[in-house]
Structure formats: structure tokens, C-alpha cells
């Protein structure tokens, strides 16, 4: 009852009431002069709260967002599109296409190979051999020419190749250093930026990997830890990374992070994660969603 009156008064304050409800409040105030005075005073104070002058966003900090956006766009373009099995990708179609390809190659061979070769081969009574040879010849020739041309082109420019190699190495080292220094920054945005730079690295330095894992385990900002988990997930084929993730799984309290790590370990079929997953699944303090996820992954990894 009291709550209902309070709700009405809140609506009365914002002039949100119907005429009937408004009258109800007016009647109440007519009988309770003290309440009316108190309400009027409160209302006056409420409407006296005014906005301060709005400050402008420091545009020099925009680059953090735009760098982050570029990194995210790159990540997105790296990801394979959602797998939709199309008609031509279906298994039966692949078999049919192979048979048709073979037949086409056979027909093409019959048309192109000179009569002499054809006659000799046929005289061996090896029809399967004929198909094999006729199919293989054009393919091997095309590949050989392509590879030979490429090697020739590269061999002509050994200095250029060396220079490119050196430059690539230098860029990688600079990025490694940049990441390591930015991960120590006070601002979480800059630390997230550092984590995102790691997406440019094909195979990061061991020190960078350690720094990313340390960030995942100990950064005081949950967004930075989430970004680190995503970045580390790309290097799940590295045993050291997977071992670190197994250890990290039990340290994490944040469900989002627990889920990210479980996903990575399951993706890379890391059976060493099983004890940690069982512990999580049995722990009552684990969130329900994480427990379910841990149980599912335990089943998958136990197969």
C-alpha cells in the first residue's frame, strides 16, 4: 500500500498521472497538509538539480578507439565466415564431381595425346594406367612451370629477399617491444591496445607470450584480461600456451574469462585441462553457465 502511494507520488513528480490519479493525490494532500509541504519542498529541490556544463571528450584519445576498431576489423576478416554447407560442398556432390573430372580428363587426354603414345599405351592393356597418365600429365606440367618460374624470379633477386627478411624481423622485434612496454601502461585502454597489437604477429616472441599470459592472470582490469584471453587463443597450438591456460583456468573468477579459456582448451583438444574442468564442474561457487560448459567440455575431451 505504502509502495503504491510512493509510485503514484513519483509519477506525480514527473506529471505522468491520469486526471483521476492526480485527483487521488490532490485529495490525499488535502487531508495531509504536512505531506503536501514535504512533497512540494522535495520537488523544488529535485528540479533545482541542474546539469553542469558538459565537458568535451579529449580528441587526442580518439586514436585508441580507432586503432582498436581497425584491429577488430582485421580480426573479423581473418575469421572464416560462418560455415554454411552449400550444395556443391556436400559429400555426394564431391564424389560426383571427381568422377566427372576424371571422365573429362580422360576425354581431354584422348584428344590431345598423340596417336603413337596412345596406341603404345593401349597395347599394354592397362586401361587404368592410361587414365592415370592422361590425368597426371597436364597437371604436373602446369605445376612444374609455375614453380620453376617462381623460383627463377626469386633467385634473380636474392638481395631484395634478404632485405625483406631483415625488415620483417625488425618490424616483428619493434612490435614485440611495443607490446611489452604498452602492457605496463597505467591506462586499461592502452593495455588493451597492446594486446591487440599481438594480432599483427604471426608467431610472437616467447617473452610476449609470457607477458600476455601474465596479463590474463593478473591484470586488474577485467576487459584487459578478456582481450588477453582472446589474443592468446590464437596461439593455442603452442604447448606452453595451453599449459599456461590450464593453470589460468582455476585462477579466474570471471565467468566470461572462464568460458573463453574453456573454449580455447577444448578447441585444441587439450586433455590436460580435464582435472581443472572437473574441479570447476563440481565447485558450487562456479556460475551455473560455466559449470554446464565445463561439463560439456569434459565430455568432449574424454571421447
Amino acid at each position, binding site marked *: 500500500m505504502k*509502495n503504491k502511494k*510512493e*509510485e503514484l*507520488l*513519483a*509519477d506525480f*513528480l*514527473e506529471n*505522468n498521472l491520469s486526471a483521476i490519479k492526480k485527483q487521488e493525490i490532490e485529495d490525499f494532500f488535502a487531508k495531509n497538509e504536512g505531506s503536501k509541504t*514535504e512533497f512540494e*519542498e*522535495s*520537488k523544488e*529541490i*529535485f528540479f*533545482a*538539480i*541542474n*546539469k*553542469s*556544463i*558538459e*565537458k*568535451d*571528450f*579529449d580528441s587526442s*584519445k*580518439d586514436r*585508441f*578507439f*580507432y586503432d*582498436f*576498431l581497425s584491429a*577488430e*576489423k582485421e580480426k*573479423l576478416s581473418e575469421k572464416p565466415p560462418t560455415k554454411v554447407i552449400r550444395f556443391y560442398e556436400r559429400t555426394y556432390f564431391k564424389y560426383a564431381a571427381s568422377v566427372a573430372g576424371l571422365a573429362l580428363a580422360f576425354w581431354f587426354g584422348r584428344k590431345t595425346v598423340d596417336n603413337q603414345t596412345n596406341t603404345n599405351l593401349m597395347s599394354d592393356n592397362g586401361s587404368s594406367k592410361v587414365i592415370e597418365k592422361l590425368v597426371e600429365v597436364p597437371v604436373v606440367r602446369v605445376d612444374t612451370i609455375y614453380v620453376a618460374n617462381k623460383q627463377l624470379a626469386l633467385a634473380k633477386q636474392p638481395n631484395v629477399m634478404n632485405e625483406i627478411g631483415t625488415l620483417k624481423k625488425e618490424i616483428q622485434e619493434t612490435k614485440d617491444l611495443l607490446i611489452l612496454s604498452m602492457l605496463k601502461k597505467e*591506462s*586499461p*585502454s592502452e593495455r*588493451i591496445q597492446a594486446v591487440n597489437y599481438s594480432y599483427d604477429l604471426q608467431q610472437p616472441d616467447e617473452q610476449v607470450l609470457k607477458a600476455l599470459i601474465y596479463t590474463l592472470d593478473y591484470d*586488474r*582490469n*577485467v*576487459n584487459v584480461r*578478456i*582481450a588477453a584471453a582472446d589474443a592468446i587463443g590464437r596461439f593455442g597450438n603452442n604447448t606452453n600456451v595451453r599449459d599456461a591456460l590450464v593453470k589460468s583456468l582455476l585462477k579466474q573468477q570471471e565467468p566470461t574469462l572462464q568460458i573463453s579459456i574453456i573454449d580455447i582448451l577444448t578447441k585444441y583438444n587439450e586433455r590436460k585441462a580435464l582435472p581443472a574442468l572437473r574441479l570447476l564442474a563440481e565447485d558450487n561457487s562456479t556460475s551455473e553457465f560455466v559449470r554446464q560448459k565445463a561439463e560439456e567440455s569434459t565430455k568432449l575431451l574424454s571421447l
Partner: protein
Amino acid sequence: MTDETAMLCVFNGELDKAAILYERYKRPLLNFFLRFGVEWETSHDLTQQTFYRMIHYRHSYRDGYEFRTWIYRIARNLFHDHLKDNHLKMSELNDSHDFEEEETFDDQNHQLIRIALQKLPDEYREVLHLSRFEDMKYEQIAEMLNVSVSVVKVRVHRAIKKLREVYLSLDVDV
């Protein structure tokens, strides 16, 4: 392009559209944090993080959500994480930024109201803040705080009652 359309594009992988939302909301969000008394640099950081989360959790956005409420909800969660991570209470943050701005033109009365507002319990201060500073309707506040509209109305009523009480006590002290 409405905020909602832009966000749906982001949801569908057109990340460029996030820049539109960033440009529209970076200022209001910065001021949202500043008004709660968060420092200048940290307010910028929290604003940036709000957009990181917007992109990171874009798949949790649903068609029909009001974008403004959704993004403020992210910002509010970040603000609470910030308080938790730094072992702070809302009442411990000083709204010094606003006072500095207003000293030249605002009267003592307004300053007293601000002080009174700061002394309110967190849940009261929050609803008044959203209602008065962010111009949010009760329904929007309810969605943002994930509570019923009735709860918001009761909270607003109790908050203004308490605000009056604290204000009058300050007035007497002065």
C-alpha cells in the same frame, strides 16, 4: 541513421558503423562518468572501455533494444567494476569537476544540493542522477538497472525525500 540501425550493422559485422556511435556517445558518456565524480583521465578510459565492450559484446545486442539504454547499461556496469576494483564507494567520489565549473555562476543553493546529492546512499543517488542528468524516463532507468519500473518509482520517491532531509540539515549547518 538511427543509433539502433547503426548498432544492428555493428552486430552484423559492419564494424565501421561503430564509429558513428562512438562519435555520438563519447561526450555524453564522458560526462556520465565525470558527474559521478570519476577523475578526468579515468573517465576517458571508462568511456573508451564502454566502446570496447560494445564491440566485444555486440552479439548480445538484440533488435528492439533501445541503444541508448543498452550503452548506458554497459557504462554503468563499468563504473561499478571500477568502484569494486579500487575498493571505492560512490559517496567517496568527489564531484569536484562540476563545482570548479560552476563556482563562477552557480549560487550557494545549488552547491548545497550537489553536496546533499553526494551524501545520498548509492542507490538513491544513482536514480536521481539518471533521471535529472541523463534525462531518463523511469522505464529506461528500470531497464538499465535491471529492476522493475515500480522499484524505480519507489526509489525515486524515497531519494527525493532523503535529499530534502540532507539538504535541510546542510542548510542548518551553514
